[in-house]
């Protein structure tokens, strides 16, 4: 390939990029996301340039490389995009009491604000998956698992009431 056929875009990252939300000192990391989750807040990041919302919270907007982000609390309302009923689960889900006789539903949920996230789906009839409908409206639910120091909050969804 000849060199002149190759062009590069210009992109300038501001010095403040990647430094987190200066107002609250909350870095755009999983640790901060988890801290918010423990407070029963579903928090994503929002690009200050175009208002686009990211969940999981991203430090850099992939479409624009914009790194001027801020934290934003999401409504938790969304709809089901894809799902499965898991009969052979992860070790963590087996420890939480799920197995072949007690399978669980996990899916991809598209939030009202736009982004999609993977989460367990509660309150659906796992033995009749044909009754679980793609597009069904869902609402976020915060689930605590584990005891003592190992206690963690997990994001799940359930049908909107």
């Amino acid at each position, binding site marked *: *390939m000849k060199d002149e056929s190759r062009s590069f875009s210009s992109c300038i990252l501001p010095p403040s990029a990647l430094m987190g939300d200066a107002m609250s000192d909350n870095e755009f990391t999983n640790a901060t996301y988890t801290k918010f989750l423990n407070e029963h807040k579903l928090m994503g990041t929002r690009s200050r340039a175009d208002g686009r919302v990211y969940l999981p919270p991203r430090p850099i907007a992939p479409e624009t490389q914009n790194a001027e982000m801020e934290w934003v609390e999401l409504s938790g309302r969304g709809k089901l995009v894809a799902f*499965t*009923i*898991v009969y052979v689960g992860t070790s963590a889900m087996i420890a939480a009491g799920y197995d072949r006789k007690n399978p669980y539903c996990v899916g991809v949920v598209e939030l009202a604000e736009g982004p999609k996230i993977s*989460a367990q789906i509660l309150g659906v009839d796992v033995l009749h998956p044909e009754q679980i409908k793609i597009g069904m409206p869902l609402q976020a639910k915060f689930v605590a698992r584990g005891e003592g120091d190992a206690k963690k909050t997990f994001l799940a969804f359930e049908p909107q009431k």
Partner: protein
Amino acid sequence: MANRKLGRGVAIVGAGMSKFGAFPDKTTRDLFVDAFRELCASVDKGVDPRDIEATYIGNCSSDLFEGQSHTAPLMTSWVGLAPRPATRVEDACASSGVALRQGILAIASGLYDLVLVGGIEKMTALPIEKVTDALGTAGDTLYEIPAGFTFPGFYAAMATAYLDRYDATPEILLRVGIKNHEHGALNDKAQFGQRIADIMAARKASAAKKGQPIPTWQDEMEFLRDDRANPLIAWPLRLFDCSPVSDGASALLLARADLATRFTDAPLYIIGSGQASDGGLADRAGLTTIPAARLAAQQAYAMARVQPTDIKVAEVHDCFTIAEILATEDVGFFAPGQGWRAAAEGVTARAGARPINTSGGLKAKGHPVGASGAAQVIEIWKQLRGQAGARQLPGDINLGLTHNVGGTGQTCVVHIFERKG
């Protein structure tokens, strides 16, 4: 998209693989020795292994599967190739497809003339829940796996999205498994060298021998719909929708194209190579296609200057039955939403117009994850050279394609091969 070219041409001049299966008495190095020996024997005009200048080995996770990291120099040392450089390549289930691309780039760059590419994985030493967790590390362990996703679960979710969008039923998936088992029955390297009908007959015979009630399945579909014979793993995927847990190794010998005829009169020229990446499953605009696969295929076709209709045989990444349907659409063989019809109508069978996975695919041949990408190329090597035995396709099979996916599509690599003359 720029139409990229290799700096120098590259050809495959040798290929070998171990048998795929569960081998309690073999570690990855034993399997790699099997693949390496078969590779050396496959070079028509012979090769002195000491002429191999560098090695790239795909390996997903020997760290977790057998407590061994740093596997590339271990493998090459064991076959006598030290002190030549040995590099491990890890891109989950696309590890050796990407190792192939690294080998190609190493020759195309002008640095080397003769390069070994390998793939290894030993998965059966762990109990199934540990295998599930080890494979899960190829997903996002912060935002996907804690939600409860497993690999069968990811592809099952893609299946629900696909079946919903295109108004199809889970039954169509079972056809892919039946077809790939029929192909695998003709491959002596396959983990499952049995047709589903054979498995069904064996179960009936076993029940009769034990004096148990003989199952009344009338045909393969009835067997596959039976929750006891074919249990759900992640609805709608059942056991026979999933590739097995496997041990195996694969190896390819790459040469600078203008030296290839020193090794064989029938080299496979690598005329197209594409690779793309992506975020996790939920990141994508739609779940009924794998965007990285589309991009990798477009790059490979553009480099090769061929069309999907030109390809005579393809090995695609059927880690699950739904994955084969998505793959045949993503590489452009069928329009979106038409892949399931093609599978149901037998178009993708060996005798069909568009044969897919004549080796048995990952489903029947086995899926030692790091070895699978290079092993796909071995089937193309055999089919294009007329050496595929009972499963050889008729006619002039001169163009082949491989499609190798890592994770749920965070990595995809596509290659196109041509036999000239």
